[in-house]
């Protein structure tokens, strides 16, 4: 898409027309609040970046779900990377992961202790490092299926023997069921992540919609994409039509990217596992298949995370209510840890980890600041 083409999706005049339409729809339904959820960090990023929340109707609650792969990478997974780094192994990872705390330390902390942590833009850079070196290179792989396909492709492309992958990849579709089934969940519709759906196809959500009778709209990431998808989603809520609608057809097809899917499942297999602050998610984790054991960091090294703990792991996690915050049933003001034990520099739960996490935003701005009146 040419810059000009992309700017078409950033047209404030069209955006205004769409927000007016959204306002009318919400008024028409006439009850409050209408709660919908997006399950995508990039949606939150775009909503925040373009200030869209001030343009949403007051009675439309757009809840940020468990869509940030950095936030939901579980504590023991971070611990594994940290422990490896302390064992003297060179650990490469995406920039987002460096500051995410494990039980006691983040990768940034152990870098301060002298561990060898390398921030890379993509897995290919880590493979390249391994090729040029004889030392062991571990790639701490995080992200959803979109990012996992890059990991799969790199492994299928004959990486050197001193390269291995510590997979913390996650698979989105199962978690929507978890959130919908959470007690007290008020979610009436989902915005599905467009970039993940490029890989899986919009069809992957049909089973969920049939079972749970909740509409799903696949949405892109420009302001108009998000607003148009919300208009469509609220229409479906109004008409009580549980359907999958693809509002990102310039990138997403019904079947998805078959080539990518084939590579993904050749390398990974879904297993159950915890998502930080959410729950155990059946089939929510992507792990390397048995055939790839030679490149599986967990098979290659004896990772001893217990040596990290110079005291018993804190019990704080048990008090964290990020799960409820991400399911939209609670807000940070209900949390006993918020602003006390749980701070941006020492986050306990997922929502305080990411710069776009609900708790992080609340902490930074003293709650929910209404900017509508400022001129």
């Amino acid at each position, binding site marked *: 898409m040419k*810059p000009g083409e992309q700017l078409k999706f*950033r047209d*404030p005049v069209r*955006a205004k027309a769409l927000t007016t339409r959204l306002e009318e729809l919400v008024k028409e339904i006439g009850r409050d609040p209408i709660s919908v959820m997006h399950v995508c*960090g*990039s949606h939150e*990023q775009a909503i*925040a*970046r*373009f*200030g*869209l*929340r*001030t*343009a949403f109707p007051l009675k439309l609650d757009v809840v940020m779900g468990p869509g*940030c*792969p*950095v936030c939901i990478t579980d504590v023991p997974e971070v611990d594994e990377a940290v422990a490896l780094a302390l064992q003297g192994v060179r650990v490469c990872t*995406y*920039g*987002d992961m*460096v*500051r995410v705390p494990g039980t*006691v*330390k983040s990768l*940034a*902390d152990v*870098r*301060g*202790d002298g561990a060898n942590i390398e*921030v*890379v*833009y993509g897995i290919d*850079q880590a493979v390249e490092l391994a090729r040029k070196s004889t030392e062991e290179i571990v790639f701490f792989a*995080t*992200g959803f299926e979109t*990012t996992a396909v890059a990991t799969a492709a790199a492994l299928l492309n004959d990486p050197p023997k001193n390269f291995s992958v510590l997979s913390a990849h996650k698979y989105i579709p199962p978690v929507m069921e978890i959130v919908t089934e959470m007690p007290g969940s008020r979610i009436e519709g989902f915005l599905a992540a467009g970039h993940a759906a490029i890989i899986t196809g919009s069809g992957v959500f049909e089973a969920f919609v049939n079972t749970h009778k909740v509409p799903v709209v696949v949405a892109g990431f420009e*302001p108009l994409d998000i607003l148009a998808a919300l208009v469509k989603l609220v229409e479906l809520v109004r008409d009580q039509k549980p359907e999958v609608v693809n509002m990102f057809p310039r990138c997403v097809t019904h079947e998805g990217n078959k080539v990518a899917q084939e590579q993904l499942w050749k390398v990974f297999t879904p297993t159950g596992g915890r998502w930080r602050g959410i729950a155990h998610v059946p089939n929510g984790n992507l792990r390397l298949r048995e055939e790839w054991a030679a490149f599986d960091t967990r098979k290659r090294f004896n990772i001893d995370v217990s040596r990290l*703990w*110079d*005291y018993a792991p*804190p019990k*704080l996690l048990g008090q964290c209510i990020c799960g409820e915050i991400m399911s939209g049933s609670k807000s940070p003001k209900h949390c006993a840890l918020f602003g*006390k*034990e749980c701070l*941006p*520099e*020492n986050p306990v739960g997922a929502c305080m980890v990411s*710069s776009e996490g609900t708790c992080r935003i609340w902490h*930074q*701005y003293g709650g929910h*600041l209404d*900017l*509508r009146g*400022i*001129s």
Partner: protein
Amino acid sequence: MKPIPGLVKHNQRIAMRHGGGGRAMRTLIEEVFMRGADDIPVDGVGLSAMDDGAAIRIGDQYLIVTTDSHVIHPLFFPGGDIGMLSIAGTVNDLSMMGATQLLGLTCGVILEEGLERDILERVQASMQATCREVGVPILTGDTKVMGKGEIDSLVINTTGVALTKRIVRDNGLQVGDRIIVTGTVGDHGLAVMALRNKLELEGDLRSDVAPLFDLVQKVLAAGGDSVVAMKDPTRGGVASALHEMAGKAGVGILISEQAVPVSEAARAAGELLGIDPLHVANEGKALIGVRPEAADRVLAALKAHPLGRNAAIIGTAIAEPKGKLVLDTGFGKRLLAEPEGEPLPRIC
């Protein structure tokens, strides 16, 4: 609840974010270096002001003093190098305090054992060329060598001294004042980041490193007493610098995102890396607060200068919310956060 021993322990080490120019660095300075610093009275601007430099009254003038240590990896980058940076950085800090007459600079270097002499000579040549461009001499210097691995190739500290009759602080904003940026934002930080993370980007992404003394003279000539605040948005970028200006003045700032000049290359690199150009360093830009009636005059003076041709009025000081930045994106409004620590490329 009792403090958690493990967490306290790792907090007591210095982390990269303490040098990032954001809140972590300011807190560290306040907690470590400012302790007891108020005890020494200064007629002018002292450490507790945490401005770009200090000012000491001498007769009817002020002597401005500022110091800056320069570390950058790699030493040579598109658009500049550490030598040019070490001169421009200090000249810019002097300029931001309202300096009208530059007296001179000092230069201390710490070299790593094994550094190639050729590299040092190239850096020195670049320093000299920049000094000549600005018209400021290096008055004195110091050289130290440390063992291999004890320091990363080369560190340069420069201290600058200058004179002025009227100091321009970074806390002078009042409600209604306009904020001008002197050119495109984010170029330096994104250019260096792209290189440092081995992104292998090719194209027009270049650091904006440049000495701003001459440009600032034009601003002061055009705006006079209506130029009420200046700051160079280095580490932490425009977001961090404006937070400081807003916080110290007790105002808020409303910024129009569409008015902020960003080069196509920096915009592209920002999109690719998921980093906001407002959050990364500039080395040749200034943020200038002016009384509303003088804004157009100052803008015209900037645009007539080669380093200011992309200058733009990007915001206005507002009464509420105090100490915060509100960004009008054209679609809605949001608070513009202060970056925490070094920005890192994102996947999500």
